[in-house]
C-alpha cells in the first residue's frame, strides 16, 4: 500500500473523467517525480482556474456567470465605481441598499511584508475600465487599515490624472461611541474626512 498522502492524491485524481485506479496511480507517481516548483505550479493553476471562474469578469464580484448580477443590472449607475478589497465587502455594502453604482474588487490591499504590491492586485483592470467607460467618480472603500489606506492613497494618485473624481469612504468615529474614547488614529482620520454641514 501507498503512504496515506499518496493514496489521497490517487483518490483525488480518480475523480477526473476517464481516469481509473491504474491511470490515477501512474499520474500520481509522475507528479511525485516532478520538481516541487512544478507541482506547486500545477496545484496553483487548478485552484486559480477554479477561483477565477467564480468571479465576475468585469468587477471581480462573486458570480456564476461571466458577468455578475450588479454589472448586468441596467438600472445601476455606470458612472460611479466603488473600489473594495474583497468580494465579500460588496455583500456588506449592498445590504444598506442605498448605493446604486458599480463595484470593482481589488483582491486584497497593498502590503509590502506580504509581498503584495500594485501588480498583485486588480489595479490594471480598474484602469482599463476607467479608460473604456465614462466613469465620473471612483469611491475608494478599502479597509481603514494601514494596508487599506496605503492602497487608497496609491489609487488616488494614479486615478486623479485621468480626470476622474476620487472620493474615499469616510471613516472615523464608530456610531454610538463617545468621542473621548476614540484613539488618536481614528480621530485623525475622522478629522481628515470632515465635511461641510
Amino acid at each position: 500500500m501507498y503512504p496515506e498522502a499518496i493514496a489521497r492524491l490517487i483518490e483525488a485524481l480518480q475523480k477526473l473523467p476517464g481516469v481509473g485506479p491504474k491511470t490515477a496511480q501512474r499520474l500520481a507517481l509522475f507528479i511525485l517525480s516532478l520538481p516541487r516548483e512544478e507541482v506547486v505550479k500545477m496545484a496553483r493553476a487548478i485552484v486559480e482556474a477554479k477561483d477565477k471562474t467564480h468571479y465576475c469578469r468585469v468587477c471581480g464580484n462573486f458570480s456564476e456567470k461571466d458577468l455578475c448580477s450588479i454589472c448586468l443590472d441596467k438600472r445601476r449607475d455606470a458612472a460611479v465605481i466603488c473600489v473594495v478589497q474583497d468580494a465579500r465587502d460588496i455583500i456588506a455594502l449592498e445590504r444598506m441598499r442605498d448605493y446604486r453604482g458599480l463595484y470593482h474588487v481589488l483582491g486584497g490591499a497593498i502590503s509590502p511584508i506580504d509581498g503584495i504590491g500594485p501588480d498583485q492586485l486588480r489595479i490594471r483592470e480598474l484602469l482599463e475600465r476607467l479608460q473604456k467607460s465614462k466613469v465620473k467618480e471612483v469611491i475608494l472603500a478599502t479597509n481603514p487599515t494601514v494596508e487599506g489606506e496605503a492602497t487608497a492613497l496609491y489609487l488616488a494618485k494614479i486615478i486623479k490624472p485621468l480626470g476622474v473624481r476620487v472620493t474615499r469612504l469616510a471613516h472615523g468615529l464608530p456610531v454610538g461611541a463617545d468621542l473621548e474614547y476614540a484613539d488618536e488614529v481614528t480621530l485623525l482620520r475622522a478629522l481628515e474626512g470632515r465635511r461641510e454641514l
Partner: protein
Amino acid sequence: MKEIRTYGLVLHVRSFGEADKLVTLLTQETGKITAVAKGSRKTKSKFSALLESLTLGKFLLLRGKTMYTFIQGELIKPYTKLHFDLERLGYAQYFCELCERCLPEGEPAEQFFSLLVTALEALEQDSCPARVARCFEMGFLDLLGLRPALDGCLLCGSQAGPFYFDPSQGGLLCANCPRPAESFPVGAATIAIMKRFLALGFTKLSVCHLSPEASEQIQQVSTKLLEYALGVVNLKSLRFLQQVNF
C-alpha cells in the same frame, strides 16, 4: 497562564479565523512573540488601531501554552507618516520583516527593539529613506553578530583596493587573493559609509551622502550575509520595493 506587560511594536498582522488577528510583535521584554487578538477585526473593537502594522504600544498579554493572547493595551505611537508613502511603508515593513524572519521566538531582544524604534523614527524624518534602510541593515547585522569585517583583506591584510565582499567569510578580499564565486565588488565609498553606519548609527545621518551605487552594494552585503549565515532568503518587502522602483 502568566500575564506579561510590555512595550512592543507590531511587526506583522494577519487575519485569523472569522474576526481575529494574529499579531507578531517585537516586544521590549520578551523579544519576538505572536499573539492572537480575538474579535479585533470587528469595527467595534476598541483596540483595532493598536493592533495595526507599525504601531508602538503598551501591551498586556496572556502567555498560553503555544501562543500569547492579547488582553488589552494602549497606543503609544502609530507612525502614521509611514502609512502615506509607499516607499516609506515598504522600507518600514522591510525592517519588520527582517526582525520577523531573523529573530528567534521569545528570546529577549531589547537592543533590536531599540534599533527598530529608532529606525522608524528616522524613517519618518529623513528625506532619504534608502539611507535609513542601509543604516538599519548595518545595525541589525551588528546585533546579530554578523558585523561585516571591513578593515582590509581578510586573507593578506592588504589595505589597497579594489575590494570584494565575501559573504561566506563575512568580510573583504583584495584583488590579488583568491575569491569565491559568490563574492562581489564593493567600492571604497561603500566601505566608508558602512564603517560610518557601524560607528555612528543614526546620529547625524542627514549629512551622510549615499549614492545609488553604494546603496545597492550595502543592501547586497546585508542580503547575502543573511542568506549565508541564517539561510534567510526571498524577503517579500524587498521584492515589493523593487516592484515599485525604490
